[in-house]
């Protein structure tokens, strides 16, 4: 490989209470495809934000050399001007505008001050053929598929005269064909001398396409492997990313399971808008005291809908079904009822619906049960502080004080705050929806420990997760959900990924082994 196009040296980036990057180095040779791998929270995105000027010069330590010169980007414009274009996972396209309009958005070819649409369309066609997009340039972006939208993004990058193309999880939302096309495209760019950096979780793709791989873990560079050295294999990448064997990702735990205390029967819920769509079909399940019950299913299988409809009918229209707790039927018609009956629901999207992002840690912790800190109608601020402080200590929430706004905490610590908020309500049954989404390995381990502790206190815990190893490693029993119906029930000792996957993709209820 040729000279280094980009060299990032000893980059350190701190957020209050968190060191997102420490002493990270990255060398990208001109004309190569360089993959960056790492778990969620390893610092990949932060590193790219530093590179592209989202975190401007002066807010990080370290140096960036690009094309042999030191660069100090003050904003995205500066880095784009230098030919560094980043394509984010969430595409930055305007759905209601045409392909041409999107490609030239903010960069319109002008003639006498007005936009020269003829030239724009002409150039758009060139760019589209470059990325292999066969569409009418007047087509609205919302009318084409995700794969093609991705190509529009790349065409947009080319309109800006890109030299270094950064793709963040480019194939995450694409199907097999579109992914293959995209990878071919990257190889084509390489031939044209364009350097690419690709962040990806799909190790098979990384292996197939990358010339070099840099692995990040917990904000540090672990190693850079070049394909030419012939040392690349998935196991090695995984080991580098995770830093330990998969076996020890879960704390040791001996479950103490009691009798069934929570039962749902014939649970049928329809979609809030389309009246003929059932999101839960005759679902029935049980939870025992001290038990961690998993719900496995593909995206859109209806697990979240099931959980939220049980939690005070906060999703969809309830059609049928009963809830029994401690042997007696309970009526749960609102979230307040659910909380009063000892239910807690920790949502999968903590930022959108789990937390009030204007709150600080202490007010977040007590938010779901203010009555507990109310004395004669008045909120007791000292009690609020003590409660929050005790959770800060017991859950090891990393924050200088509980007066800190929740937005300043890292994802894992925010998740702990949400857990504290629901533990504060002293629930009998906790429903945790994707409790470890978007948090790093270390915090995951701690959260697993918290979940196990909650179960050991005699509570029931439901864990909804899309990560198969998590379900198998954590849960005592797993239900599989497919298209709104529960299709199977697997005890821990029988759980293996293949069996679960079969049940998660089949509407036929398999005989329980």
């Amino acid at each position: 490989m040729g000279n280094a196009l980009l060299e990032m040296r000893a980059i350190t980036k701190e957020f209050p209470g968190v060191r997102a990057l420490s002493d990270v180095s990255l060398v990208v040779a001109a004309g190569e495809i360089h993959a960056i791998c790492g778990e969620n929270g390893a610092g990949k995105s932060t590193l790219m934000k530093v590179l592209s000027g989202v975190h401007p010069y002066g807010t990080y330590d370290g140096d960036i050399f690009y094309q042999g010169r030191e660069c100090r980007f003050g904003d995205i414009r500066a880095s784009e001007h230098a030919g560094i274009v980043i394509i984010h996972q969430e595409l930055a396209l305007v759905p209601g505008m045409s392909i041409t309009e999107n490609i030239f958005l903010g960069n319109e070819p002008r003639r006498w001050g007005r936009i020269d649409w003829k030239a724009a369309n002409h150039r758009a066609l060139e760019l589209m053929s470059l990325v292999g997009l066969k569409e009418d340039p007047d087509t609205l972006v919302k009318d084409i598929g995700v794969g093609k939208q991705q190509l529009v993004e790349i065409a947009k990058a080319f309109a800006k005269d890109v030299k270094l193309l950064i793709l963040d999880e480019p194939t995450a939302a694409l199907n097999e064909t579109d992914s293959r096309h995209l990878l071919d495209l990257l190889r084509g760019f390489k031939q044209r001398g364009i350097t690419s950096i690709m962040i990806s979780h799909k190790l098979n793709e990384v292996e197939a396409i990358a010339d070099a791989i840099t692995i990040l873990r917990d904000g540090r560079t672990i190693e850079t492997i070049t394909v030419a050295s012939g040392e690349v294999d998935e196991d090695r990448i995984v080991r580098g990313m995770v830093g330990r064997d998969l076996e020890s990702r879960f704390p040791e735990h001996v479950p103490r399971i009691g009798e069934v205390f929570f039962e749902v029967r014939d649970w049928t819920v329809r979609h809030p808008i389309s009246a003929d769509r059932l999101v839960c079909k005759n679902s029935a399940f049980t939870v025992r005291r001290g038990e961690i019950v998993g719900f496995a299913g593909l995206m859109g299988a209806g697990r979240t809908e099931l959980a939220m409809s049980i939690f005070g009918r906060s999703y969809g229209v309830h059609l049928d079904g009963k809830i029994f707790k401690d042997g007696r039927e309970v009526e749960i018609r609102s979230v307040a009822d659910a909380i009063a009956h000892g239910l807690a629901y920790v949502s999968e999207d903590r930022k959108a619906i789990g937390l009030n992002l204007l709150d600080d840690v202490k007010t977040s912790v007590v938010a779901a049960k203010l009555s507990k800190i109310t004395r004669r109608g008045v909120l007791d601020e000292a009690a609020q502080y003590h409660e929050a402080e005790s959770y800060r200590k017991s859950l090891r929430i990393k924050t200088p004080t509980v007066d800190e706004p929740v937005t300043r905490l890292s994802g894992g610590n925010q998740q702990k705050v949400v857990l504290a908020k629901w533990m504060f309500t002293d629930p009998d049954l906790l429903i945790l929806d994707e409790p470890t989404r978007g948090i790093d390995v270390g915090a995951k381990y701690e959260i697993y420990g918290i979940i196990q502790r909650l179960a050991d206190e005699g509570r029931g815990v439901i864990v909804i997760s899309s990560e198969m190893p998590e379900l198998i490693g954590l849960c005592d029993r797993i239900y599989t959900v497919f298209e709104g119906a529960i299709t199977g029930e697997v005890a821990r000792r029988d759980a293996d990924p293949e069996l679960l996957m079969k049940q998660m993709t089949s509407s036929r209820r398999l005989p329980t082994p």
Partner: protein
Amino acid sequence: MSRVRDLQKNLFGGTTSNARQFGMIFTLVAIVLYFQIRTGGLTLTSGNLIALTQQYAYISILSIGMLMVIVAGHIDLSVGSVAAFTGIVVAKAVTEHDVPWPAGILLGLAVGALIGAWQGFWVAYIGVPAFIVTLAGMLLFRGGNQYIGNADTVPVPEGFRVIGAGYLPEVGPATGYNNLTLLLGLLLCAAVIWREWRSRRVRQQMEGAEPAPAWISVLRLTILLSVIVFATLRFAGGRVGTSFPVSGIILAVLVIAYSFYTRNTAGGRHIYAVGGNARAAELSGVRLRRVNFLVMTNMGLLSALAGMIFVARSAASGPQDGLTWELDAIAAVFIGGAAVSGGLGTVSGSIVGGLVVAVLNNGLQLIGTGSDMVQIIRGLFLLGAVALDVYNKKQGRFSIIGSLTRPFHREPPAPPGAPATPSRADAKAAAAG
């Protein structure tokens, strides 16, 4: 440097306060001093202070309700019309239907609550945006006022006028001052001292949390007490027969009650939760609809009260009452540091914001500025105040969020590059770019 920061964080109002309000108080002081000098001492005379209180008490009452509406993420454009509508209903009832005036006031409050409930119903239970509901209400109740009053002016009897134009009566020995006003000032001093002491004690109970340094408490008390003593002597020592206005007392009671409610009760915190993240609040067991309904109903109630005080002050209800009040109230709330997107803001901040607007108006009038220029200056002022706030928030300094949520928190020296000092970093980056 750290002393200055302590001062910024802690001087005014402990946990209620925010740096925005701190800035606002300084603006207020600056404006008062400016006009005091420009008018040759007219601004702080007894007569002017009393007039100022009477003239802006009803706007401030509106801004209390408006603060809660805005914190919950809504807006109310109908308050002026609702005030006018209630005013004419009460004036008619008292004057033409011989309803005793105390009953008339109760009637007015009931009408206001009913109107608020009507608007709250559409906002909370049907889901029509408050902007639309209250825009409709603005037309509806303005028309209602003119329909009932025949677009005419209806006078109100002497007794009724007390709530708008009345003063504390003269009692006790002749001291040369109004004794009840003096007593009120004394009570206020005691309350301020007690509150300071209590907030320090509460903070001390929280191990690990540092209370504000003692010198700040002393400084704050000194400033507050001198202001109170000065104001008390001014209000008590005015022209014979005048003293602290009844409308000012109503306002003070409401400010204390609503500050307490919004800060120290679950119901108050629910309003902030709904405005901060409605879905999250709902999933935490907050009854979203009920909160929205109550906030709108309360606004109706306070609009009615403001309308009646105005009618009492001007001795009659007319078809032009309450015009553009909604704008004054909204301006006060935003100048007082509330966020346009909801979830942030304080009652005391809104009152300070209202006070700034009032002094500005009053001062401009005293120096004989025409109403055209007054409007232009007020417009620019509103824009400037909120723009400054937005700018500061972007710079990471002096932000409402930051200071609201960590009023007592003393920062350790900021690590290099942390957002606590981005202003410098930005400046550097700008210089480099």
